[in-house]
């Protein structure tokens, strides 16, 4: 008897949970559906749910009219470039704090975190001017550096929490066997830290891909990534729903899939290890 009730309960909970989940994800589902509609049916009244004339034309149109791939490559370069540069700086720092902690390591970590809390607008004027003066405005290199800097504290923190979980005895054993510092990091630490580094990379790529303050303020055309591309749809092109949807779907698809794989790391990375 009790079992029957609990199955019933489970069914009810399942229905409720799926209902809420579909409601939350609905704008995304609707966008993907709309991207396959002919423009006229995209604004049909009342809305057409599934019985429309499926087409891939919007994707072809967006690609042809707006040089979609220029923006796409800028996004890729900024996301990968800032992540690679960030790792290069963060791995040694995180190693040092995790395995040779000093008296001030804790303060140092907290200070790094505090740089993350500086609001973008607070330094908008100087960064904008510095970019104009140095000719970095609208360059990929300039963006790679800025995006790396805003995410560096998160990378250091995440790597630090992962490195902390590696037993220090293993490193000591390697040292006893005569491994130099660089080979210790390269051959002992890095292989053990690969899962942690991979998670860090994943989260950082997501954050860099979606960063929508500096990528929009500091670019015009040459270095403009997908965030800028989509913002260009604000009006009046935004009224072409099917094209807007196709462009949006292409902009979010790669990162959405990556995001699904990084749920756990997301919690750890974005709460700086405060919630695990």
């Amino acid at each position, binding site marked *: 008897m009790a079992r029957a009730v609990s199955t019933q309960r489970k069914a009810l909970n399942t229905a409720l949970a799926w209902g809420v989940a579909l409601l939350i994800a609905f704008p995304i589902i609707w966008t993907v559906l709309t991207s396959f509609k002919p423009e006229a049916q995209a604004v049909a009244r009342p809305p057409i749910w599934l019985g429309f004339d499926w087409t891939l034309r919007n994707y072809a149109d967006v690609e042809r009219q707006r040089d979609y791939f220029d923006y796409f490559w800028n996004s890729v370069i900024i996301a990968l470039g800032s992540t690679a540069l960030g790792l290069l700086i963060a791995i040694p720092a995180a190693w040092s704090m995790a395995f040779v902690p000093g008296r001030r390591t804790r303060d140092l970590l907290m200070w*790094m975190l505090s740089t993350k809390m500086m609001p973008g607008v607070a330094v908008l004027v100087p960064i904008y001017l510095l970019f104009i003066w140095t000719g970095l405005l609208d360059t990929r290199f300039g963006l790679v550096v800025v995006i790396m800097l805003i995410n560096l504290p998160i990378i250091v923190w995440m790597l630090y929490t992962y490195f902390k979980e590696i037993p220090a005895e293993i490193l000591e054993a390697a040292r006893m066997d005569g491994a130099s510092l660089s080979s210790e990091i390269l051959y002992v630490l890095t292989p053990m830290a690969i899962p942690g580094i991979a998670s860090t990379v994943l989260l950082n790529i997501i954050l860099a891909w979606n960063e929508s303050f500096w990528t929009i303020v500091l670019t015009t055309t040459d270095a403009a990534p997908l965030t800028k591309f989509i913002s260009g749809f604000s009006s009046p092109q935004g009224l072409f729903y099917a094209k807007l949807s196709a462009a949006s779907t292409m902009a979010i698809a790669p990162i959405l899939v990556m995001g699904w794989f990084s749920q756990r790391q997301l919690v750890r990375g974005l709460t700086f290890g405060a919630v695990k």
Partner: protein
Amino acid sequence: MSTQASRSAARVMLAPAVVVLLVWMIVPLAMTLWFSVQRYNLLRPEDSGFIWFQNYANFVATPAFWLAILNTLLLVLGVLAITVVGGILIALLIDRPIWGQGPVRILVISPFFIMPPVAALIWKNMFMNPTNGLFAAGFRAVGLQPVEWLQDWPLVSVILIVAWQWLPFATLILLTALQSLSSEQLEAAEMDGAPPLKRFWYITLPHLARAITVVVLIQTIFLLGILVEILVTTNGGPGNESTTLTYLVYFEAILDTDAGTAAAGGVVAVILANIVAVFLMRAIGKNLDA
């Protein structure tokens, strides 16, 4: 344990990260402070000079200033209220035994990975548009007059959009915290005849307190910086009805080319963010010891 050599090596390896972050923090902030006491228009750089606190006076005297402060607070509080309450409810729901927990989690978390301009434009056009939007279709279907969301409820619209983006984050963090709650405690309370609401209030909620604090503080940091969602939907309008502090500074700097006044606004933003940051650092610092 560590040798002298490894200590100095550690310092060398730490140096690049510390140096770049130090430069990144100090140079622009110092420049912001400097510009905030300068008359400096981007279009007339030759006509600049020291003017004490005139920029601050100008910034506060902007017609939109007090409204912007109010809107900033409403935006932050509104989004926090929706995401924390909604996050707790959804986390409680998903944490129960259900079929297909994996896919449900994926659906719920998805909006977090949507880049802000996409989220804002989807909502603006395909949902809130008074002629072709889905909301309008819904209103018409039940015989009501469609609402002009961005015209009549600009700030509410922005709050809804931003809350949709951040609801997954709150849910995910709270769900993670919920899963570390021992079920024995809850079962014991159930045996003792505590009703569900009491169990939630006296056991679950205190357990979640820490995670809620973290969600509130981290979101506040990000919410204070919201710009693009406003930029592509209402542009701060109509009038100044959806202008926030961040938008006002952006407007002064980029559209009004008044770097001096924008810098003064930037300093105001730093002060506001720092108040929140102090609390956040304390919450996270506590955990570092544990």
